[in-house]
């Protein structure tokens, strides 16, 4: 009886659940959610037709691939932008400093949807850009770059003052200090936050469907508009995103544990 109880309730919140308890409860949660959905569907008298996904598999897969590519490229560009802009924030040249500050504030202070529309209808035509994929990558990178900037800035500021002084006293140049002492530590410290931001990037990419970038959400919505099978395709859409974001989340947790060396 006591063992049964332990499977469902921990002695204190800090305890670790056993494998059996963990598995049982995860299954229960799954059944609970599935139950709610089934109840909702039964009350609607809905009949599933999962074949639509198979029928339009190429279209959907193409969208999925585009999302993958879009997010993959944007991850690199946004980190690059973040490094440049975070350096700008630390710069002694005030113009760069305020430029970086303005960039971060404007991007973080406005809705992503508004930025997409603004960029697509005003900036892109002005500079003669008309490849939607490229526009999508740019918007997503510029948007995420502002958040990456803040993550990097926080990381740099988390390096205690004594380390900067010690490094200087040892004769390291400012560039060497960044390269050997600050960045390696900042990188390890911000990896979990950065991974979280990348997971956001994947999800945010779905908004690019409003400017008709042929990514996952857009292609699934098209299938819906042809087949009227909203439930099936949107369930599939959600699972598709989870398939990318859950591994990133696990990776982030693993990184957190791996680099837990500082007290």
């Amino acid at each position, binding site marked *: 009886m006591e063992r049964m109880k332990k499977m469902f309730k921990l002695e204190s919140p800090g305890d670790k659940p056993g494998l059996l308890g963990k598995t049982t409860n995860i299954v229960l949660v799954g059944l609970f959610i599935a139950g709610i959905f089934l109840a909702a569907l039964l009350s609607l008298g809905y009949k599933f037709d999962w074949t639509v996904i198979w029928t339009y598999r190429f279209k959907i897969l193409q969208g999925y691939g585009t999302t993958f590519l879009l997010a993959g490229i944007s991850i690199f560009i946004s980190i690059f932008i973040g490094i440049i802009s975070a350096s700008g924030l630390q710069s002694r040249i005030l113009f760069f400093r305020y430029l970086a500050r303005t960039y971060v504030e404007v991007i973080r202070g406005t809705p992503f949807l508004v930025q997409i529309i603004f960029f697509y209808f005003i900036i892109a035509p002005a500079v003669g850009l008309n490849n939607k994929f490229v526009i999508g990558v740019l918007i997503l990178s510029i948007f995420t770059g502002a958040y990456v900037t803040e993550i990097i800035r926080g990381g740099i500021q988390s390096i*205690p003052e*004594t*380390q900067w*002084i*010690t*490094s*200087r*006293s*040892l*004769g*390291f*140049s400012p560039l*060497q200090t960044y390269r*050997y*002492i600050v960045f*390696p*530590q900042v990188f*390890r410290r911000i990896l979990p936050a950065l991974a979280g931001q990348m997971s956001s990037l994947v999800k945010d990419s779905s908004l690019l469907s409003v400017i008709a970038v042929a990514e996952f959400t857009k292609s699934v919505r098209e299938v819906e508009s042809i087949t009227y099978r909203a439930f099936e395709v949107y369930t599939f859409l959600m699972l598709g995103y989870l398939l990318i974001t859950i591994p990133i989340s696990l990776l982030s947790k693993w990184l957190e544990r791996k680099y837990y*060396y*500082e*007290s």
Partner: protein
Amino acid sequence: MNLEVRNLSMHYGEERALDRMNLSIKDLDSVSIIGPSGGGKSTLLRLVAGLEIPSSGEVIVNGTPIDYEERALREYRKRIGLVFQSHNLFPHWTAIQNIVLPLIKVFHYEKEAAYEAAESLLVKFGLMEHADKLPVQLSGGQQQRISIARAMARQPEILLLDEPTSALDPQLTKEVLDMLIELKAEGTNILMATHEMNFAKKASEYVVFIDGGKVAVEGPTESFFSINNEAKLGEFLANVFE
């Protein structure tokens, strides 16, 4: 070492951390700087270490005035070993990497030569078993001893220590002080700000009492601790030994 401090002032806004300080140390191996917190000990050490630029005045180390221009300072710092109160070691490097990497990156040692130099220091001070540990795996005393070993790896003209034991308990303090006594016996030039009066008595030839940004009392160790006539010093020592 020879250390000449002339009319040295350091202002932080309104605050005068050093106020036209004068000090002359000639041909001495080991000097202790004592005095109340905020009296100017650390500021003096940071200026001697070439970490900050004085508001006015000059510092002459072994006959050469410190050129307080950033590029020149970077060269100058290579001649000095410096150890702070705590958190000297870089947490992402092992003990031996903390010693080796400055040698390679700043002094352009070959990798093998740097490791050889670091290992011989670690062996000498009985720290070899800790070579591959990260700072977080070491006790405060071990961290400080490795910091001192790192400072010694560059064979500094002066080893500057800013209250190296004030974050440690008595047992660990002894560990660190024993190492410094050993270094002093070998002829290392030590300039140390400290609250450890016993160490000042035992291991330094000269004691400087700094208060209010000035040298208040100074003298050879024996006579320094016997005069005790200055009211301020009397009070300070009474508090220290309480």
